Structure formats: C-alpha cells, structure tokens
C-alpha cells in the first residue's frame, strides 16, 4: 500500500471485524517535533497478549488467524522504516488501540494520501459504527463526529446523494483548512 490513508482503512477494517461500534481515528502532524502519529482506537472485542504478538509478527502468524490483521505487519514495518514505532494496546472485552509513529520528514515516509476518501468509505460503508475523526497539524485541528449527523438525519440513509455530498464536502473542507492554516511560516 502506497498511502498511509490506505493503511488506516485497513486497520479500521480490523476494528469493524472485531465488532466495534465506536471507532476513533486520529492523525496528528507535529511539525515542531517532526513527527506524524496515527491512532486508531476501537471498542471491539479486543485481543489477549498472545494474539497481539501473533498478528504483529508475520513470522509467527499461524494459519488460524485467517486474513484479519493481514496488513498489520506492513503498517508496523512502514513506521519502523521511518525512525518511528508501532504499538498495539489491547484488552479482551474492552477494545484495541493501534498507534503508528513516523518521523514526518523521513524520505521513506509514505504520503498520507486520500484521507477524506478513506473516511468517506468508512462512514458511508459502515453506518452502524459511530465514527470520530481528528486531524491535527500543530495547533490547528479538524474534528468530525458522525453522531450529530446521524441524529439529524434520523432515518435518511447516509448513501442518499445529497447526504453523501454533505459528508464529502465537510471532510474535504475541514482537512484542507487545517493544511492551509498550518502552511503559514509562523507555524513551522
């Protein structure tokens, strides 16, 4: 995968498979400390330490794990190749938090890619999940919580064309605004 946004999509798919109904995705670019941090936090069924170890290291993966978690070793390798690190904190019955940290300016760091596209896919394709998204560059932040949207819609599906347009434009405008504001030299 050539975009961090695709890795985010893949990890969030694991959260959905784990039965989560609340998933928070956070992307933070800290220009001062030259760090990029991605966090995906879910309230799914969680894993014990042994399972975490097994899905993190491809060389101990047994065939019984099937294809869930297939992308985790790649995401881990991507972070570690960029002077970063990767952690999975998980507790059976409580949920899982996946964190990947990259040196932001590292030559091998993949671009974030189409973040809005990833979020649109998740929000519209999995309406039963409560999605929370946070994107931050230094002190500029955009937050999207789909719960208020669903409360207002009350019964109108997310795949209604005008609702989709609303979600797409809200995500794109929000992400662009954070990027524009943080491009001012004072913020670097």
């Amino acid at each position, binding site marked *: 995968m050539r975009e961090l946004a695709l890795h985010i*999509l893949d990890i969030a798919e694991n959260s959905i*498979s784990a039965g989560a109904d609340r998933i928070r995705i956070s992307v933070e670019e800290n220009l001062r400390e030259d760090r990029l941090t991605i966090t995906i936090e879910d309230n799914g069924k969680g894993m014990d330490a042994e399972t975490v170890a097994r899905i993190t290291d491809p060389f101990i993966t047994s065939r019984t794990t099937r294809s869930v978690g297939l*992308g985790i070793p790649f995401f881990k390798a991507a972070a570690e190749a960029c002077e970063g690190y990767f952690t999975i904190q998980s507790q059976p019955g409580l949920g899982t938090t996946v964190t990947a940290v990259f040196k932001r300016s590292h030559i091998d760091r993949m671009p974030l890619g189409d973040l809005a596209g990833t979020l*649109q896919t*998740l929000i519209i394709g*999995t309406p039963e999940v409560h999605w929370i998204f946070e994107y931050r560059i230094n002190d500029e932040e955009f937050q999207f919580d789909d719960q*208020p949207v669903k409360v207002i819609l009350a019964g109108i599906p997310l795949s209604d*064309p005008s609702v989709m347009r609303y979600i797409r434009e809200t995500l794109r405008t929000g992400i662009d605004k954070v990027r524009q504001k943080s491009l001012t030299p004072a913020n670097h």
Partner: protein
Amino acid sequence: MPTVKSLDDLKKIREEALKKQQMKETSGKSEVIVGMGTVGIAAGARETLKAILDTIEEDNLENIIVRQTGNIGLDSFEPIVQVILPGKEKVTYGKVNGDMARKIMKQHVVGGEIVKEYQIEG
C-alpha cells in the same frame, strides 16, 4: 453551493430527502457491496467504492445502499463488487476498477441489466 456546510444545511437536506421519499413508492432498495479486506484495499477497492459513491452523487441516484464488507474470500478477484437488486439474486463482479464500477452502476444497478463480461462465479 457554499463550500462550508453546517448542521443546519443538513437539516434542509433531510427535509428534501423526506419529501422525495414520500413521493416515491416503496419499491425496495438496491444494495451494492464492496469487499474491503486487506487484499481488496491493496488491489484498489477504495477507488472502486469511491467511483460508486461518485456515480450516486453525480447522477442523483436514490434508494441505493452502499456497504463495505471484510474479506469476501475470492482474493484473486479483488476488488470485488456485489449487487443485489430488490427481489433478485446476488450478482458478483471481480477485478472491478473505477470505470467498471461506473458501468456496473449505470447498466446493472440503474438499468437492471447484468454486466456479463465482468461477472464471476460467487
């Protein structure tokens, strides 16, 4: 159309959508499912799904439910798209890129005619 949207805009969208819903007979909804497992994502499933969403938006297609699902179990045919029209059998398409997805939307989901050349056993 203003670029910054508020929740008030959303309330208006809902009212419009409700009006349209009331005018229409309940003819059932068509379902479009995209496989979004690791293999699917690596093969371009997000772009396939995005093309489906864009077609719905551009052509103002109503009464379509778009869903994503984990691994469908046909790895070598990813990205996979499945279409279920009301009262019809599920049709599975394989190696669907964005352009193919647009054609499936127009010919099958809207027009009711299966795109035979993309169809696989599923």
